[in-house]
């Protein structure tokens, strides 16, 4: 196994990403409003947290760097194969990425199409994606679960959930 495939290398890369994030976050805090009479400024607490995060990120960076450059003992968990995040090489990651995209689309369409319809769609697609191919089960489950959930929230907990294009169902329930 190449050193670049180990968990130690993954930790090294993640520590660099974190360091960039911390520098950006610290610069961002310098723009917070300053109160002349205050002993503790609005930026103080976030800055302390960023410094704390920075210290441990540097420790992680040094630990990982030493492990990658000097080598690791057998049995060291950092010497194991790092998880892949490349969707082109790993079908599992591609599927996970697809579910994330579905979730983003779900958020965008939630108000327009309504909870029941978008939930049924995401449910059918996800079940199909992960290998459940029996449409006689997939479709009823995907429709009934969101419908029941909507009914419980709407009627029992009086939480108004958007129904979008299925608004007539709510009107029907209200009439009954």
């Amino acid at each position, binding site marked *: 196994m190449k050193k670049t495939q180990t968990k130690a290398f993954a930790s090294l890369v993640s520590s660099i990403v974190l360091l960039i994030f911390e520098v950006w976050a610290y610069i961002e805090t310098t723009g917070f409003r300053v109160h002349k009479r*205050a002993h503790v400024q*609005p930026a103080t607490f976030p800055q302390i947290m960023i410094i704390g995060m920075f210290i441990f*990120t540097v420790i992680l960076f040094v630990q990982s760097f030493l492990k990658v450059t000097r080598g690791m003992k057998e049995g060291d*968990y950092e010497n194991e194969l790092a998880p892949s995040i490349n969707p082109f090489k790993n079908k599992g990651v591609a599927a*996970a990425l697809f579910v994330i995209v579905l979730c983003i689309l779900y958020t965008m369409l939630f108000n327009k199409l309504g909870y029941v319809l978008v939930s049924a769609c995401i*449910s059918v697609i996800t079940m199909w994606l992960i290998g*459940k191919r029996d449409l006689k089960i997939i479709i009823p489950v995907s429709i009934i679960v969101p419908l029941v*959930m909507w009914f419980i929230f709407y009627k029992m907990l009086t939480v*108004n959930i958007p129904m979008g294009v299925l608004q007539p169902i709510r009107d029907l329930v209200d009439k009954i």
Partner: protein
Amino acid sequence: MDWGLLFDSYINVFSSFQVIFMTFLGALGGILLGAVPGMTATMGVALLIPFAFGMDLIPSIGLLLGIYCGGMYGGSISAILIHAPGTPSAAATLLDGYPMCQKGQAGKALSIAMFSSFCGGVLGALIMTFLSPLVAQMAMKFTSAEMLMLAFFGLSVIVSISGKSISKGLISAFFGLLLATVGQDPTYGAKRFVFGFRPLLSGFSFIPTLIGLFAIAEVIAGVERIITGEEKQQKSEEKITNVLPDFKTIKQIWLNIISGGLIGTFIGAIPGAGGDIAVFVSYGFNKSSSKHPELWGTGIPNGVAATESANNGCSGGAMIPLLSLGVPGDAVTAVLLGAFIMKGIQPGPMMYVNELPTVYRVFAALMLANLAMLAVGCAGVRFFAKIVSVEKKMLYPIILVVSLLGAFSINKNIFDVGVCVLFGVIGYLMNKFEFPLSPILLALILGPMCEQNFVRFVDVNNGNFWEILNRPIAVGFFVVSVATILYSIYNQRKINRREAENKRKAASM
């Protein structure tokens, strides 16, 4: 202690149909969720918080406590039947539970687990009833200095829940504390990390963040595991006939139940230490004090009793710091803290002054939750085994749509669904690169408490933070926190060394 009020609270809770119904419903849901490997009581409580939103406080707390107690027992079902603990708290139950199942005593093992869980839970609830007012009385003398150091003490357990890398655990914790600062600052109302985005002014809502980090991240990871073939479907065809253990068995295990319950309550009361630690401590203690330690691990009822009473004892123990100090004892009570805050009640010493009837009703609700767990467990013990056969390909999409609805329902705001998805992705990536998620949860809860008391203390003392050294209780908390951190680092290094040695031995064989 106001005995009259306590008695009235018990009558009030035990005579309310809504509370009884919700608690039984919670116990049923908790057992079913707990029995599914990978579904924890934390996830169950987080999922059902939106349901609790529209209810009165006590029925909603009854529902959540029902899930908590039910989930603790439910984890043992799959541990005993298929050698896969449903929850981390049931990890030690399989040591003797599964061998009992292999000997054809699955029913007996399940009934012992249920009975021991009930006894441990009742013991924990009783200790909580008598001990937490004393702790709260002491906490009444706390000022911002003590509260700041108490929050620090709560955060100090992060090291023990950091997993293999302490650095990663602490990075997660500081990241969580940083996330807690998003929005308007509590003293001057200055905007922090808002980027002109109005919904961010009030910061990230706790529940959508929690659902995202735990439930959505688990669904995304579960989909990946199914595609790569790492997720295996479990099946059980065991037939269960015994519902409760017989008198002879109870006589054999009662000492293990009591010691397990006490150990569980004590460990549960330490913020950050939960059932997963308590079960192993209880198992180790009971084994070493047994006349026949060589029989432990071969399938004896004592092993099941010692572990199951410990994990349910934790439920009462974890409520002690939650109610008396406002510091959650474990991940589930952290979510419960969110539920209290959602209802406009801030747990802590002042709760014993302003909300004493509520505190007593919570005591009664925990007792009811244990009774509900026993009743539901007895009624369904024969059928629970079937839950382990639920197909994950169906389960994950259902969890996804229920979780996203849960995130929306808190503020009826699509922004929260987006926050939930965002934290789902963050949680998935953090899990992948072994950054633990529990420290973020603890930090999100304790962060605001930490900042507010820090600002208050420094302002009161005209900018002199070192004045804190003149507060003995605060210094005491600080010393205990540092000791906890150092011991946790030592312990984690020992665990890592042992694991590495075991792997080397396994590789050389």
